[in-house]
């Protein structure tokens, strides 16, 4: 193992205080990573830096520089790419897949219910206040059932792992989760740079994602649509941090990328202006927020929406994906009740665990949280992107005290969770290869069928010991492999 002395062997993957996806807890090589061990050990140090530079150049050339959904930060900053793949065995993925699909189904059932009869509220399984007083509850769509009963067509579920068989959901993204272009581009770049790896390992492809997405969107065309549905992607424009992703998906699906000004309402339908004249639009995959969709229904000052769109939508002339109002299923206070949704709507036990969550709005929970603040993670109910968040064990005394004051002043705005020992995956760092914490965002597609491409976005906290994987906080991305049986 001569090479390990130079810092490339698995031996050097130092820490033993958590679950490493390559070496477990005991340091024994786990099967899915067997071939990667040979790969990394055989890689000379010069080649590694050469390849890393090549990867970065490729990413830059593609122009993929945006921040992941809601993270803010500098949109033009290049998000670091780590070449060491993250690997799941077929059996691990099969289990995850069942859990993800189950959750996506329950979230959609919840949405149809709370905009309909509200059975789950009547049954007392979730407090009505969390649903109907939620900012994301959209009364303009109450009583409306979208085609096929689907509100959230692309469900991004953020998952962390704490052991060989333990996965927890950190949060759900039911509106317009982004980042799938990283899944596609990471794979493309890895295949280009390391074709041998893809010959030696049997890795499930992810490049059919756009085809499945296209099929999913077409499957929810309105009843009034006759013939092949015309699908478009509605973007707020090129200054948006995820514009690259919008244009990539439009290209891959072979559909038009439009801005609000390219669409107009006439009579019962929505049309796109094209060089061949107006063309009726059946399905809009929108990447803009509810509030900006239609100035005649929501914010009157919206310049990126389509006036009259909501009237056409609600009278069945066009489908909007995700459906307006889907956000009520994915805030951090409603999150606590997702396992309850699985039991209530599906009559099943949840396959994926939630992270234990204390609602600081409840007096007894707040007391508990204030008591153990230095051990806990505290988040804003509506926050995202790792901002406005306390990681107790990593925080200074002052920070802890600052949060104590925030919590006391406005407890309902916060939730708290235990600090999880997130799994690590070997990652190329300055000194060689070292374990770094990761999470996973798979993209579950819900239309007539529920489908999941085997893979997702793996985000990695590049700072040693850091548990925050958000790109705004120094996170990077990895290719995510699912091995074939």
């Amino acid at each position: 193992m001569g090479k390990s002395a130079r810092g490339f062997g698995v031996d050097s993957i130092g820490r033993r205080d958590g679950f490493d996806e390559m070496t477990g807890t005991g340091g024994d090589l786990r099967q899915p990573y067997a071939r990667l061990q040979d790969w990394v050990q055989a890689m000379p140090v010069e080649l590694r830096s050469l390849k890393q530079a090549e990867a970065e150049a490729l990413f830059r050339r593609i122009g993929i520089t945006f921040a992941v959904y809601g993270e803010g930060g500098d949109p033009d900053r290049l998000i670091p790419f780590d070449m060491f793949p993250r690997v799941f065995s077929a059996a691990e993925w099969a289990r995850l897949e069942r859990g993800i699909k189950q959750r996506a189904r329950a979230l959609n059932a919840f949405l149809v219910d709370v905009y309909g009869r509200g059975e789950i509220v009547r049954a007392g399984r979730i407090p009505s206040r969390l649903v109907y007083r939620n900012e994301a509850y959209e009364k303009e769509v109450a009583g409306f059932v979208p085609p096929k009963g689907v509100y959230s067509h692309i469900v991004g579920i953020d998952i962390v792992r704490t052991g060989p068989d333990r996965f927890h959901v950190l949060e759900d993204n039911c509106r317009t989760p982004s980042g799938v272009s990283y899944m596609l581009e990471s794979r493309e770049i890895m295949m280009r740079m390391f074709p041998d790896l893809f010959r030696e390992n049997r890795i499930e492809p992810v490049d059919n994602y756009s085809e499945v997405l296209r099929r999913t969107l077409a499957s929810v065309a309105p009843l009034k649509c006759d013939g092949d549905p015309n699908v478009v992607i509605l973007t707020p424009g090129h200054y948006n941090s995820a514009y690259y992703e919008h244009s990539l998906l439009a290209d891959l699906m072979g559909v038009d990328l439009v801005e609000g000004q390219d669409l107009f309402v006439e009579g019962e339908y929505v049309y796109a202006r094209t060089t061949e004249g107006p063309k009726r639009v059946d399905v809009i995959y929108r990447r803009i927020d509810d509030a900006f969709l239609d100035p005649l229904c929501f914010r009157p000052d919206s310049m990126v929406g389509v006036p009259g769109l909501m009237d056409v939508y609600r009278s069945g002339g066009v489908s909007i994906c995700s459906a307006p109002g889907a956000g009520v299923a994915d805030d951090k206070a409603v999150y606590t009740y997702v396992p309850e949704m699985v039991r209530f709507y599906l009559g099943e036990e949840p396959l994926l665990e939630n992270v234990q969550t204390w609602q600081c709005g409840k007096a007894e929970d707040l007391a508990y949280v204030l008591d153990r603040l230095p051990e806990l993670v505290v988040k804003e109910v509506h926050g995202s992107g790792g901002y406005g968040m306390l990681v107790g064990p990593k925080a200074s005394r002052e920070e802890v005290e600052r949060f104590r004051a925030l919590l006391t002043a406005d407890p309902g705005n916060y939730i708290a969770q235990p600090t999880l020992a997130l799994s690590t995956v070997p990652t190329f760092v300055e000194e060689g290869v070292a374990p770094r914490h990761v999470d996973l965002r798979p993209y579950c597609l819900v239309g007539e069928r529920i489908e999941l491409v085997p893979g997702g976005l793996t985000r990695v906290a590049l700072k040693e010991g850091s548990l925050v994987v958000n790109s705004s906080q120094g996170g990077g991305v990895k290719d995510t492999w699912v091995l074939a049986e």
Partner: protein
Amino acid sequence: MLLHVDHVTTYRYEAPVRSAVQSHRLTPSLCEGQRVLDWEVTVTGGTPGAGFRDGAGDFVQGWTVAGPVSEIAVTVRGRVETRDTAGVLRGLRESVPPEAYLRETPATALDRGLRDLALSVQAADRLDLCHQLAGAVAGAIAYAPGATHAHTTAAEALALAEGVCQDHAHALIACARAQDIPARYVSGYLFADAEGAAQEAAHAWAELHVPGLGWVGFDPANRCCPDARYIRLGSGFDAQAAAPIRGIARGPAGREALDVRVAVLTGEQ
């Protein structure tokens, strides 16, 4: 009571617009106490969209007008037979739970003045409390056309101590919410034979939710609950959301003039 409505809204554009889109809540609610005998809405040069009933029970109808046009007239004509229900809204099919109407909007945001006004009254009974809140609002804001404008907030109107029906309704919604009572803005028509009838004919009031009774209308401007003189059209969080006409025109920038004529008459034909 048999009410005749004749309502014409005319938009005039200095520079002709390329197109216009409107969303209407201009059809009387399907509820007890009002029966439509005939009703017609027309838009000059307009193409109607597919109308639908929304979750709050309102009939919503989209319209588009292809340009260039320099004038668009929206005409509403019809007859409704009304009956006094003591302000209680019954029979309207809606799926939005009352609790959803505890949301603040910029027009109905609470400030200290509104909060103090809301908490200045007390009653053991919810209905009684609603009456008292409506009375407090009527007492605090004098009817004074021209003192406020379309974007005046409840807090501003209270500070001015003057306003019109829109300001009264906004203030009452804000005060109700301060007492944890769901409240909403209602737009409609009013037959008034007294002075100022023309100005009040396109009217607005508030509905507050009373467990056991449901939604109950309160009109602080007239210190009463809606009766047979009222025609209910639609509701929303505030005036903007409940507007009978929401519209937008696209075209070259230029002056836009708005002319509204409303007549509500009674008769036995």
